[in-house]
């Protein structure tokens, strides 16, 4: 394996390809030892800039941490986690999505989604709401919600669920501080064993060590009003926008993006056409009137 690599290094154009190949080989070797379980199929976000940083996407059989930038922004972090869950169910029925007549074709097949949450977090941030989930592309038929009084029980239930082959995505929602690194390690191993996407949803950012493959901090961002929203006084809400900061990544670089969720095609788009620096007041005369 040594010789072709050396020859490739000679030509500068071949270098990225070689790096890619080496990275892949390294990943494969690591996966085989079972020591760094961030492998499995890659779940792309649908944005090349982000997928590139993640070398293809998020590992499906791995644990990822998603924290809200602030507790009040938990709904945004929830939206990000659910979008990943919706995308995870996607490939199995891609053809159905393409031919689907309704705006949001909700998929009822596929593996289950388990949403495990602490009581306190549900009381503070609201419970999953079926009709809303259905609109976001998560079929409530495939959802099982679990509540637990203590963070210990949340972690235990997550581990059990991650090992189950019938479950595709496990969202574990926690409000308490401090999760033991050993515990995240166990979760990561369980995710690898069950080939299940584990999402640890936290209501505030933490910087404690963790065995998660990636760590995201998700905040809200003002939406860009829908094109052609006629009425001047009150325009509608545009597609939701999130600030996604990748603050930890075992596979590569970090980054920060503003992404927009396209609920029709169930994919993320990079928010290009408006950085909310100056435009907001200008576009919104009713607000100017108030001020």
């Amino acid at each position, binding site marked *: 394996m040594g010789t072709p690599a050396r020859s490739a290094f000679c030509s500068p154009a071949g270098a990225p390809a070689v790096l890619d190949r080496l990275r892949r080989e390294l990943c494969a070797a690591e996966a085989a030892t079972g020591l760094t379980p961030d492998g499995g199929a890659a779940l792309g976000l649908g944005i090349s800039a982000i997928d590139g940083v993640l070398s293809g996407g998020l590992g499906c059989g791995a644990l990822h941490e998603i924290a809200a930038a602030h507790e*009040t922004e938990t709904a945004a972090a929830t939206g990000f986690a659910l979008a990943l869950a919706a995308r995870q169910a996607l490939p199995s029925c891609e053809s159905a999505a393409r031919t689907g007549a309704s705006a949001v074709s909700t998929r009822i097949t596929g593996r289950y989604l388990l949403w495990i949450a602490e009581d306190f977090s549900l009381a503070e941030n609201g419970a999953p709401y079926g009709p809303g989930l259905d609109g976001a592309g998560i079929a409530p*038929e495939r959802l099982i919600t679990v509540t637990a009084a203590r963070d210990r029980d949340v972690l235990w239930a997550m581990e059990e669920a991650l090992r189950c082959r019938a479950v595709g995505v496990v969202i574990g929602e926690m409000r308490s501080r401090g999760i033991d690194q050993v515990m995240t390690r166990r979760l990561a191993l369980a995710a690898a064993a069950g080939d299940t996407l584990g999402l640890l949803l936290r209501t505030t950012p933490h910087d404690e060590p963790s065995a998660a493959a990636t760590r995201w901090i998700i905040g809200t961002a003002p939406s860009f009003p829908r094109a052609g929203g006629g009425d001047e006084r009150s325009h509608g809400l545009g597609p939701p926008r999130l600030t996604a900061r990748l603050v930890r990544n075992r596979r590569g670089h970090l980054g920060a993006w503003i992404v927009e969720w396209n609920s029709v095609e169930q994919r993320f788009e990079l928010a290009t056409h408006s950085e909310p620096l100056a435009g907001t007041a200008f576009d919104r005369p009713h607000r100017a009137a108030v001020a």
Partner: protein
Amino acid sequence: MRQWREAPSPLAVFGKCGNLDLLVAVDAAAERLGLTAGLALAQARAMHPALTAMPEDQAADARLLEALADWCQRYTPLLAADPPDGILLDIGGCAHLFGGEEKLRDDLLARMTGFGFTARAAIAASIGAASAAARFSEAAITPTDDERDLLGPLPLAALRLSSDTVAALARVGLKRIGDILDLPRAPLAARFGAELLRMLDRALGREYEPLTPRLPVAPYIAEKNFHEPIAREEDVLATVERLATRLKAALAVRGDGARRLELALFRTDGVVKRIAAGTSRPVRDPQAIRALFVERLAALGDEIDPGFGFDLARLSVTIAEPCPDEQIGLGGHEDQAELDRLVDRLSARLGRRRVSRLVAHDSHIPELAVAALPAQAMARAELGWEAFRRFRVQADLSPRPLRFLARPEPIEDVFALVPDGPPVRFRWRRALHEVIAVEGPERIEGAWWSEEGGPARDYFRVEDKAGMRFWLFRAGLYRDMARALPRPRWFLHGMYA
């Protein structure tokens, strides 16, 4: 129980009867001193100043009787408490398990004495005869057809009649059951009521008296006696597996599987621990049943206090359902089975109500449109989302929030440009939110047919300056204030991504 065991002697318990404190029970030492139930407390104290008297506690007595009845389940599943001081056991078909009726009675009395109770027991063919014999006679076992001989010499009170009837009978000189056995029935009934003859017939076995069991009788039961009590968790689990193996054969014969199981552990000191576990699909597999109880025992932790050990374990299937024989290992069913096992494990450890499926309800009121029901019960049920989706498309329903507050939270300092218009800013949990985008209103009528229906709500989807999105509503209209309706109030009901 402890209190009375350690209480000084002689001891009497008194209760209020009208304005008078009367003794209701005395211990053996007090009885030897000539005290009896029914004596006035003042008189008893005057006779024996050393007497310790305690007020009675009927609720505690009832609880004790229930606990004892529970314990008696080791002899038969068919039993009922017979307040204030009796327990009825239907031992038909069970006696041979204990070596015959005589042995069963001896065992029961020996254990009761061991617990510190003074107990009497009698076996007869009818509830009435057994109750009369246990309370008023020395006869231990009455053969069928001998009820006349048994009951004849006993006082009429043995028939479980009201004290008024007994007193009325006594006034005309009828004191013993034998006195009325051969009297013409019609005049008796006319004078003392039909109840007298009914109780007589029941005691004689002429009329069948059903026993209403305290607990429903499980369709499948397996149990194991231990000569040496067991206390370790592993032993309990091994026993569960052994019992489940025995149940499996019985279940297979009738094509059933267990949906709910109960493990009853009889502690040597008379306490019965009951542990229930449910499943989402009928199961027969002993390993799966054991796994359920592993989680239950882990969840209960120290609550299962084995004390000096359990000397009887009983595993019963309280709810059984037909369980089709399935092929194992072929295709998609395997996944479903695995999910069911996961749900069962989570439910066993965390509680049945904590593992839920969301069920769509046909209601336009947001908080009633969906309910979280136990996943174990809903494993095969229709959840109703198909109908909801049709409705959403038909009605062109505006997007619903991802997260929903169980109780709408009031928001303050709401400022709207026009009274019934959308909010421009509002304060929620002390933070001020400035609205930059609005959709709505979507009017949702309150439940006008109900007293607590509340006013109509106007829902708005709003986005604040930071990009946070909320589902707000105003309950009521400002213009309705002219009709003396209360001032409208604003609430926050949900959050969007």
